[in-house]
């Protein structure tokens, strides 16, 4: 019985290790560089794309109402932060076989209709979002010029209504880093649509 308990403990320990690995980058971790193709058919590499501060990486999509509700705010973020050295990189992580509205062609249409001025790239192999531990759209990761993850979570504190926003977490994080400080909070919980991953 004693051994059984020990075995159970070991098993539980191993399981939690596996779960921890699934969570992706933690704050302070160095992010692996990646290259993905955007709606203009051009390949974008994170390290090349970054500004003097870094980049705001946003996993988003065409179809999730929370993501759609954030489109204008993502554009505003890019407009205000790109000139400060923190351009936005939007990534669609969804498998279009599960969600046809998130196909590459649909991304191109959406980007044109909304006249996005930030790149909107496709994680077509679904390798980038698991590395970041992104679970939903929208889900944001602020990466500094040293490729360190500095903030992970939501865009602001009011997904349903831009008018009710009190704190913009991204602007706050970038402002803190610019002052040589760590973002506080460095992580937030955000609501979103689960990423549509290929079923193994």
């Amino acid at each position, binding site marked *: 019985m004693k051994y059984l308990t020990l075995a159970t403990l070991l098993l539980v320990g191993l399981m939690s290790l596996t779960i921890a690995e699934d969570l992706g980058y933690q704050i302070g971790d160095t992010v692996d560089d990646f290259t993905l193709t955007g709606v203009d058919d051009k390949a974008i590499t994170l390290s090349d794309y970054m500004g003097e501060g870094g980049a705001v990486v946003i996993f988003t999509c065409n179809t999730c*109402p929370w993501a759609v509700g954030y489109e204008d705010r993502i554009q505003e973020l890019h407009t205000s932060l790109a000139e400060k050295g923190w351009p936005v990189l939007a990534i669609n992580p969804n498998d279009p076989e*599960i969600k046809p509205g998130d196909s590459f062609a649909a991304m191109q249409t959406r980007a044109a209709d909304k006249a996005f001025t930030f790149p909107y790239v496709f994680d077509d192999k679904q390798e980038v979002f698991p590395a970041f531990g992104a*679970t939903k759209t929208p889900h944001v990761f602020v990466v500094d010029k040293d490729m360190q993850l500095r903030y992970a979570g*939501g865009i602001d504190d009011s997904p349903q209504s831009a008018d009710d926003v*009190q704190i913009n977490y991204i602007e706050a994080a970038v402002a803190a880093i610019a002052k040589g400080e760590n973002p506080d909070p460095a992580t937030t919980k955000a609501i979103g649509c689960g990423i549509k991953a290929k079923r193994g």
Partner: protein
Amino acid sequence: MLFLLLSALGLVAQEDLVVHDFASLGPYLEQENDTVYVVNFWATWCKPCVEELPYFESLTEEYSDLPVKVLLVSLDFKTQIESKLKPFIAEQKLTSEVVAFYERNPNDWIDKVDPAWSGAIPATLIWRKQDKQLIEGQFASYNELKEIINSLLNT
């Protein structure tokens, strides 16, 4: 009389749909008794959520004689409760209890449901007494859900 008849036929949208915030939903999640509670966070536009609704409906029906209680918490936008959620409940003839939910700031309540929840839907909180688990993502099958319920009922 006409209203009663229409209600019985499921033609009238639920007039009494409760819209919770965390202050009013929170105590429900704290209940510790013999009942197995199943609280599913979903939305009408969430495809995987809608796909698994029949599992919760089957649970409500199949376990009606057992201490199992399903609550479907809709995260449909507050501006769409009348236009989308209520018609959906009526069309689908949902028999499980449905409530709507609104909080401005997700950061204020997601961790209070369960710190393990990333905030993605679908997500389902299942517990009996202090034995609690948060399942993020879609159930692979009705059986997967049933196995969790059965094991909690047998503890």
